[in-house]
């Protein structure tokens, strides 16, 4: 009873119970019943438990082996037969790994945006980044973004709450990069580096 009252933080309730027993004339019974509690009284106490949960936001980009990936190369080879167009090239991929622990509003939902911040895609060339989400928790919703010389940014993943992708090879949101072009729009002089930036923010 004492332990229960102590655990409930309600010693007043315990005292009421004691008075009730005395009034009934059950003093020996009361002493016998409470003796073990008195013996242990000095070892009993309250302890506050303070939980602190980090409102975590973590993000990295890795390749299929789980190694950090910050560069993808697209080499457009000329056709093997005169008269043909430049053949299409295989899409490449990387994995966006993230851990998110949401908080209360204003940080209860997160998103990942992608934008071109360096270099330029030649006119007529499109780069489509398509996310395929894998992980545990509320990973969000992915939408493919097509980047062109006229469209430099877009929101790739929305509605991220508390979730994690895993950190091993093949874990994470699979990002497929597909380059679409027409031979007549190509200009070898425009070869170069295009810098994509991913931003994790709250929605």
């Amino acid at each position, binding site marked *: 009873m004492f332990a229960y009252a102590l655990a409930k933080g309600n010693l007043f309730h315990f005292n009421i119970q004691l008075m009730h027993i005395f009034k009934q004339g059950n003093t020996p019974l009361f002493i016998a019943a409470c003796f073990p509690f008195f013996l242990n009284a000095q070892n009993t106490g309250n302890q506050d438990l303070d939980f602190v949960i980090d409102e975590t936001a973590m993000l990295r980009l890795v390749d299929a082996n789980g190694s950090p990936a910050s*560069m993808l190369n697209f080499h*457009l080879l000329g056709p093997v037969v005169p008269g043909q167009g430049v053949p299409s090239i295989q899409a490449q991929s990387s994995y966006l790994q993230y851990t998110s622990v949401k908080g209360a509003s*204003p940080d209860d939902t997160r998103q990942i945006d992608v934008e071109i911040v360096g270099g330029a895609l030649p006119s007529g060339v499109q780069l489509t980044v398509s996310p395929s989400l894998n992980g545990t928790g509320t990973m969000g919703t992915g939408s493919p973004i097509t980047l062109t010389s006229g469209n430099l940014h877009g929101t790739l993943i929305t509605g991220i709450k508390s979730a994690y992708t895993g950190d091993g090879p093949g874990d994470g949101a699979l990002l497929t990069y597909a380059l679409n072009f027409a031979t007549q729009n190509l200009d070898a002089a425009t070869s170069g580096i*295009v810098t*994509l930036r991913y*931003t994790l*923010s*709250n929605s």
Partner: protein
Amino acid sequence: MAIRIGGRFGALLLFAFLPLPFTPIHGQVSVQNGLAQFLTCDGPTQGEIILQNQLETPLTVLLEIDTLLGSKTLFRIPSEITLPPIGRISVPYTWIRPDSMPHGVCVFISCPPKQISTTAEGWAIHTQLRFAVKLYRGCLSEQPEDIIRVNAQFGSHTLSWQNVGDRFWKASVLPMAHVGEPSGPDISLFLVPHMPSVAMQLPQNTQFVLATDEWGRQLGFRFTEYAH
């Protein structure tokens, strides 16, 4: 037989056994106390962003400010900071000369860009990562009915909220199938003045919505196909 190692072979061998110079890996910094914070106008003027370095070496991090509301000259934060190995650090920020007007900045956190060499053939895609931490300071509205505009789209069960006043508004939104019968968990709502509307997806069977703010003031809506 003596083996003589020198010249170019020796240099090559020496290079092979030397530890590779450390190359910063993008994405090894993280934010540990949220991507948005709000300080009320009658509260403290200082806050912190907690950053963590996952690397076993020090990491330099850049912090850039973009203005969301008001003037960024009223906000101060270090522009660059070095994180200790495998450690976290608190980056303090201050709202200077605070007033009752709404203020907001976005702090972009990133590692310095890597030096990259140009390619001669085709394209190369180089990637960078960054975090955006939104920081707000201002007064909360005690009269939501004067500053809140709500639009409902019945077909998609979407409720759009817009703050057309000069004060922030925080509330907890409870969707209900019937009066007193929740159709889903509470949804926290934070409306920034002068910002585009915020869309909230509701459970399909929602018929009523009850928003309760910090002072217990409530706004209720009936979710019908005529609601606007």
